[in-house]
């Protein structure tokens, strides 16, 4: 298949009719279309898949140019159309996909019509003819099966997904499509024509053409054999589905196990978050209790504490209190009153109310207990001693509680920061418990599928046996009739051809697969210089093998550069084989060269690999079409300059309009 021209009409930002011609010159087989980010590279790449298969990766499924839509009047219509001219198996095809958009009377866009898909080809008389509508999908599958298209229409931003697809879990259709590309389709077609479930296949049609007139049981046995075939086919179909379901469930199990192992930290982190939250709560209550204690201490002892200095000064002053004390030691008020009541003093003088002695004694009353100044001072001193004791621990108590409160601010911020860090790590983690539940479900699904498969295999064997006996019974009857005997002979020849072809096909398929493995490895080693090699299993899944470790032949995890090298090597290998098998002398290997259409293919490579890839691709592929951003594009042009046959530029006028111009 060689791509010649692409014409876009109102497709996304490509307003109006915009044609582009790709280089088909074998010596200059590269077309480079360069543009800045957002100019329409991916859109142009998607135009191919929309045209061929009616689908794109865009979230916005409206293909109509926004600039056109804006200018449409109410009730007006506009078409989106992509035409792709290509040559396949020497035949010139035009693949056309078209979709009609219209506005309602209020000026809103209606839901677009279904896309119209047409394939035209140039007949032997040079006239354009249409492939009948019912056959367009089948013809498209023959030109380029969808399963394989993503490898020929390569999107550099899908590397991760492609890498996974290329290494495991590919469908049976994928293997069939690769086989077809490798030129084995003539074999499969011949095998199908000779013997398949289709009633038109040679053996089935002979089965249905027995002369039942010779013995009514022939028709009955044929009917029973048909029924057995139906059962066997249903079982075979279900077994294929089971294989796919098992692959999906196994993939899920692997994915979940990987996640569980990756997220097992989430359990530890969740516990750590809980511990930190408890610590935070502890800090909050500790702050509250420290504040209360501080206030309590302050209220209780602040007075004494702050009076300490005054008390100290006062006590200092009072240390001389004996000078102020005019009292008589050990004389009490009661003593004076006794003397007054007795009427004479100790010295013998008479004491009469208001005489001199009386007045002197009354003065003494002011200095002796209970009103003695000395006593009051004594009392004050004792009070001071007591109070200063109470206030002495205030500073330490308040300091300690204040330290707790002050530390709280720091500790709180620290714990809060740690909680945030833990939560950030937990953000992208999934709940391991839920994952475990899912894993158990998928594992039990796998078990169920295995049981179902075992049972179906038993049933399959049983139907095969029954069919075998019935065929023998029918043969016994058919050989009695001349016409039916002839049919048995024809069938025997058909069966012989089927068996020979099947053996030949099995051998060729294995040889082709080995050859593909060698080709892919040769390219891989050229692109990626490392101790790795690739192996292909019977489903064409690629396994990466470490060469340096003898005996270690399990698949290994790889870096991005390795992954993209694997993808390139696989695609380039298939393309090279398809191209080479054209020249194969074996008549049954019929193949076709294929182009490589690549969107941002070099973005994941370093300079050295860009050079290697640029060197390899034009050699292995019949045609290379690259959509590339300016910086990578300059490198690509440097390395592929000699092979570039056409150059285009995405000229972005505004967000809604880009024009393709030649450079």
């Amino acid at each position: 298949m060689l791509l010649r021209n692409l014409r876009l009409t109102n497709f996304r930002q490509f307003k109006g009719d915009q044609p582009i011609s790709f280089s088909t010159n074998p010596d200059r087989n590269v077309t480079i279309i360069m543009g800045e980010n957002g100019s329409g590279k991916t859109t142009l790449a998607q135009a191919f898949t929309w045209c061929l298969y009616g689908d794109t990766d865009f979230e916005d499924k409206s293909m109509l140019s926004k600039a056109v839509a804006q200018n449409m009047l109410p009730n007006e219509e506009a078409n989106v159309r992509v035409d792709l001219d290509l040559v396949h198996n020497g035949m010139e095809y035009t693949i056309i996909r078209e979709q009609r958009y219209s506005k309602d009377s209020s000026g809103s866009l209606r839901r677009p019509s279904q896309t119209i898909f047409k394939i035209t080809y140039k007949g032997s008389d040079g006239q354009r003819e249409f492939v009948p509508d019912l056959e367009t999908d089948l013809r498209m599958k023959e030109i380029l099966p969808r399963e394989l298209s993503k490898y020929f229409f390569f999107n550099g931003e899908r590397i991760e997904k492609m890498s996974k697809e290329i290494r495991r879990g590919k469908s049976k259709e994928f293997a069939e499509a690769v086989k077809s590309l490798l030129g084995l389709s003539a074999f499969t077609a011949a095998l199908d024509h000779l013997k398949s479930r289709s009633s038109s296949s040679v053996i089935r049609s002979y089965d249905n053409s027995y002369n039942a007139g010779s013995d009514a049981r022939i028709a009955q046995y044929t009917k029973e054999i048909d029924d057995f075939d139906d059962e066997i086919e249903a079982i075979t179909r279900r077994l294929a589905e089971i294989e796919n379901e098992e692959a999906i469930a196994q993939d899920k199990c692997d994915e979940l196990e990987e996640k569980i192992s990756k997220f097992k930290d989430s359990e530890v982190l969740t516990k750590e978050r809980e511990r930190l939250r408890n610590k935070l709560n502890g800090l909050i209550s500790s702050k509250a209790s420290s504040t209360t204690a501080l206030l309590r201490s302050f209220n209780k002892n602040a007075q004494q504490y702050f009076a300490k200095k005054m008390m100290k000064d006062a006590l200092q002053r009072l240390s001389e209190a004996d000078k102020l004390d005019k009292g008589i030691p050990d004389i009490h008020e009661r003593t004076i009153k006794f003397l007054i009541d007795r009427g004479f003093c100790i010295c013998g003088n008479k004491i009469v109310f208001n005489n001199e002695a009386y007045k002197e004694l009354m003065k003494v009353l002011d200095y002796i207990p209970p009103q003695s100044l000395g006593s009051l001072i004594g009392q004050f001193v004792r009070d001071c001693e007591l109070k200063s004791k109470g206030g002495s621990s205030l500073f330490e108590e308040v300091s300690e509680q204040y330290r707790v409160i002050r530390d709280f601010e720091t500790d709180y911020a620290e714990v809060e920061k740690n909680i945030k860090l833990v939560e950030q790590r937990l953000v992208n983690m999934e709940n391991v418990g839920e994952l475990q539940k899912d894993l158990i479900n998928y594992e039990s699904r796998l078990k169920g599928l295995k049981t179902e498969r075992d049972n179906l295999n038993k049933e399959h064997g049983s139907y095969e046996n029954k069919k075998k006996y019935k065929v023998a019974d029918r043969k016994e009857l058919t050989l009695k009739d001349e016409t039916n005997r002839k049919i048995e002979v024809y069938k025997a020849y058909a069966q012989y051809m089927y068996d020979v072809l099947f053996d030949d096909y099995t051998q060729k398929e294995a040889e082709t697969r080995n050859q593909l493995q060698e080709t892919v490895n040769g390219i891989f080693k050229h692109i990626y210089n490392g101790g790795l090699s690739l192996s292909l299993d019977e489903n064409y899944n690629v396994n990466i093998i470490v060469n340096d470790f003898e005996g270690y032949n399990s698949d290994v995890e790889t870096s991005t550069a390795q992954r993209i090298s694997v993808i390139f090597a696989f695609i380039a290998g298939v393309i090279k084989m398809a191209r080479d098998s054209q020249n194969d002398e074996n008549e049954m290997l019929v193949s076709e060269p294929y182009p490589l259409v690549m969107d941002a293919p070099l973005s994941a490579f370093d300079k050295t690999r860009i050079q290697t890839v640029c060197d390899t691709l034009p050699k292995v592929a019949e045609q290379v079409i690259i959509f590339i951003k300016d910086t990578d594009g300059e490198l690509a042009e440097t390395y592929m300059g000699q092979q570039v046959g056409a150059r285009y530029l995405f000229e972005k006028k505004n967000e809604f309009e880009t024009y393709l111009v030649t450079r």
Partner: protein
Amino acid sequence: MADTETKTINSVEIDVEKANRMLKRLIVKETANIKTKRYNDGEMAKQIKKIIEEEVVCY
């Protein structure tokens, strides 16, 4: 009649040389049809039947 290599398929004896001749004709037809798409599956089966019946008759 010259000695011919035979083989028994489903209790029917077939002439291997004749069978291989049919096979060659079938291969040519299939490879051509892959390129030209001239015949659909049903038509191809009819073509193969025609080859078989012609060769079997041609004894």
